[in-house]
C-alpha cells in the first residue's frame, strides 16, 4: 500500500468571536492516498469549508485557531512548518479551487496576468529558482533541481539567497504565454486569445470559475482541494465543470479533496466519502458502502432527504431539529437530540470515534456510532 499523501489527525479548530468560542472542527481524522478523490459532505455550517481552508493553512488566524492535531502532507506536519514557509507548499503542493467564482479573480488584472502568475510560480519552482516543498508521490522530491535540499530550506532561518524568487526571467517568456493558452483551452474556453485580454468583470460566472480551475490546475498540484467548485454555477455549467474535472483527474493525476453539500455530485466524483456533522467526521469510507449501508444515523437521514422522482407522493423527508450551535454543543454524541435510535448513554458519553462498521464488507468503512447495526433498520 502506498503512503498516504495527506493524513489529517485529530484536527480541532476553534473560532474565537468576541467572548464566544465555536468548535468548528473537533477531532477530525482521515487519510488520502495518491490519485484518490475524497469527498466531504455535510450541511451548511458543519465545518466542510473550515476543513478545506485549514489544510493549506488559509484560515484567518484571528478568529480561527488550530487547537490541536496534525496535518501531514507527504509526511510533513504543516502545522509545524513556520507560517512564512507555507506559501511554498501552496499552489504546486496543495492547490485550491474556491467557492466564489465572482470574487476570486483580482479585478485589477487581465485574465492573462492572473494565469501567468500561477504558471510562473510553477515554472520557477520546477526549475529550482524558487523554493518550494512541492514533491513527488512520496516525501519531498528535489531530484529535478540542483538546489536547495529540503532539509536546507527547512532548517535555514531565512530563504537561502540563492533561491530567492526572481521575477523577471520567466515573466514574459513564450513558455508562460504558451502554457496560459494551453490551460485555457484545457478548461474548454472558446477563443482563449480574446479572453486573455479581458478583465474578470467582463466574464460570466461560469467562465470565471473555469479560469479559477485553470489557475489551480496550471500549477499541477499534488493535492487539489475543491471547495464547492460548482455550487455557484447553474446545472448545465455544473455538469460541464464536473465532466471537465473528471477528465482532468485522468490527465493530471492529482488527488482531490472534493467538498460539496451535493450528495449526487459526491457519488459521481469521489472514491471515498467523509460525512461531517457539527464539526466532526461521523462517517468515512468508500462511496458505495457509505451510501448503500450507512453506519451512522445522520448519513442515513441525509440520504433520505435527497428528493427522488420515484417517491413523488408524500412530503419530502426531512430531518427534525436543526444543526446544533457550535458554541453550545450537546453533551455526548452531538447528534443524539435528533437521532431516532438514541439511548440514554448517547447523551452521557460521545461514544466511539470512527469505529469500523461490522456489517460493511470494506474494512475502511468506519462510523462514529455505537449502534451501527441498528442504522439499517431506520426508515
Amino acid at each position: 500500500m502506498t503512503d498516504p499523501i495527506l493524513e489529517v489527525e485529530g484536527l480541532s479548530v476553534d473560532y474565537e468571536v468576541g467572548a464566544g468560542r465555536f468548535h468548528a472542527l473537533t477531532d477530525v481524522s482521515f487519510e488520502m492516498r495518491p490519485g484518490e478523490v475524497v469527498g466531504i459532505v455535510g450541511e451548511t455550517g458543519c465545518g466542510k469549508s473550515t476543513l478545506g481552508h485549514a489544510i493549506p493553512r488559509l484560515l484567518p488566524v484571528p478568529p480561527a485557531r488550530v487547537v490541536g492535531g496534525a496535518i501531514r502532507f507527504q509526511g510533513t506536519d504543516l502545522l509545524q512548518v513556520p507560517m512564512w514557509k507555507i506559501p511554498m507548499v501552496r499552489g504546486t503542493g496543495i492547490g485550491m479551487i474556491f467557492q466564489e467564482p465572482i470574487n476570486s479573480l483580482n479585478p485589477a488584472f487581465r485574465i492573462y496576468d492572473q494565469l501567468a502568475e500561477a504558471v510562473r510560480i510553477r515554472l520557477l519552482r520546477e526549475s529550482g529558482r524558487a523554493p518550494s516543498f512541492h514533491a513527488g508521490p512520496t516525501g519531498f522530491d528535489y531530484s529535478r533541481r540542483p538546489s536547495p535540499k529540503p532539509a536546507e530550506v527547512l532548517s535555514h532561518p531565512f530563504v537561502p539567497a540563492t533561491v530567492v524568487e526572481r521575477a523577471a526571467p520567466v515573466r514574459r517568456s513564450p513558455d508562460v504565454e504558451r502554457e496560459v493558452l494551453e490551460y485555457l483551452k484545457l478548461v474548454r474556453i472558446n477563443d482563449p486569445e480574446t479572453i486573455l485580454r479581458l478583465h474578470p468583470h467582463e466574464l460570466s460566472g461560469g467562465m470565471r470559475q473555469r479560469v479559477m480551475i485553470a489557475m489551480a490546475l496550471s500549477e499541477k498540484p499534488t493535492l487539489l482541494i475543491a471547495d464547492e467548485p460548482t455550487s455557484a454555477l447553474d446545472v448545465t455549467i455544473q455538469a460541464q465543470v464536473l465532466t471537465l474535472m473528471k477528465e482532468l483527474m485522468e490527465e493530471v493525476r492529482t488527488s482531490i479533496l472534493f467538498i460539496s453539500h451535493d450528495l449526487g455530485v459526491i457519488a459521481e466524483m469521489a472514491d471515498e466519502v467523509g460525512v461531517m456533522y457539527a464539526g466532526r467526521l461521523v462517517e468515512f469510507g468508500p462511496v458505495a458502502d457509505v451510501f448503500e449501508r450507512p453506519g451512522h444515523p445522520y448519513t442515513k437521514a441525509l440520504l433520505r432527504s435527497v428528493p427522488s422522482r420515484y417517491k413523488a407522493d408524500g412530503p419530502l423527508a426531512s430531518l427534525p431539529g436543526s444543526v446544533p450551535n457550535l458554541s453550545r454543543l450537546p453533551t455526548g454524541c452531538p447528534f443524539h437530540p435528533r437521532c431516532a435510535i438514541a439511548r440514554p448513554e448517547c447523551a452521557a458519553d460521545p461514544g466511539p470515534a470512527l469505529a469500523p462498521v461490522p456489517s460493511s464488507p470494506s474494512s475502511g468503512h468506519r462510523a462514529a456510532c455505537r449502534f451501527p447495526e441498528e442504522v439499517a433498520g431506520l426508515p
Partner: protein
Amino acid sequence: MADAKPAVPPGPPRRRIGALRVIGDLITVLRANPLTLAGFVLVALIMGTAVLVAGVPFVSGLFTGHSVEVLPYAPNQISTAVKQGPSLAHPFGTDNVGEDIFSQVLYALPLDLFIGFAVTGFALLVGGLLGLVAGYWDSPGTVGGFSSVAILRVTDVFLAFPSLVLALAITAALGRGTFPAILAIMLSWWPYYVRLTRGEVLAVKHLPYVTAARGAGVSDLRILRRHILANILEPLTVYYTMDVGTVLITFSTINYVGIGVPLTVPEWGNQIVLYQDFLLNLPWTVAAPGLAIFITVLAFSLLGDGLRDILDPRSRRALTRSAGSASAGSEEA
C-alpha cells in the same frame, strides 16, 4: 497532458503596450467627461506655468550667465504706478507701492505647488508604507502584530491633534522659515495616510481573490504589491490628488497666521496677510492670490474626481464605450 503538448501556436497572446494604451484611454475618458477635462487642462496649465516661471530664469542663467525673466516685473519691484486697478499693463493691478500683483502671484506659484506635492508625496510614501505594514501583518502575538500596534499607537498620538493645530505648534516651535513650515506640515500630514491605507488594506485583504492568490502559493510581498496595492491605488491616488489642494490651503493658513514663511517670501498666504488692510480700497490685491488658491485647489479636486473613473477598470471600460458610441452617434448626425 504534460507529455503530449497540444499544438498551440506560440504566437503572442497579447502585446504589452502599457503607456500607449493608458494615454489612449485617458484621451477617450477626457472627451467623455468635460469636468475632468477642465481639471486636467487647468492642472496642465498650472504646472506648465510653474515650470516656465521657475525653469526659464534658472536654465537661461546656466547657459547665458544672466537669467531671462518670464514675468513682466520682479515681484518686489516698486514703481510710480501705485494703486492701479486691473489693466493690460497690470492684469491684476498694483498695490500701494506700485508692485505688480500679477507677477507676485505667478512668482509664488512654483513654491506653493512644490510644497503641495512635497508634503503629500512624503505623506503618501511614509504613511502609505506604514499603513500597508500595519494593515497586512496584524495577527496578534506575532512580530507583525506588534509592529502594527506600535505604528498605530504612534499614529494615534499624532491624530489626537487637529492637523492644522499640530502644524502651527510645530512651526511655532521650529521658528520662522520656509523649511520649518514645510517640515511642520509634513509631520502633521502622514498619519492620515497611515489610517487611510490601513483601512483600505483591511477591506481588501480578506477578499476572495486575495485568499485565492494565497492559495495559489503567491508570496506575501507579492500579494501585498500586486493583489493589495494594485487594488487600493485608486482611492489613494484620488485622495492624494485632492489633498494637494488641502495642503496648499493649510500652508497658506500657517503663513496667514504669520508664523510660517517670512513675509518677504512671495507666497499666496503671505500676500493675503500683507494686503488684507487694503481689502476695501484695493480689492484686487487680495482677490488675486485668493483666486489663485481657489483655482489651483479646484483644478486638483476636479482631476482627482476624474482619476477615480479612469483608474477603475470597470468604469474605464464603460466610459470608453459611452465615449465611443457618443462620437459614433454624432458622426451619424
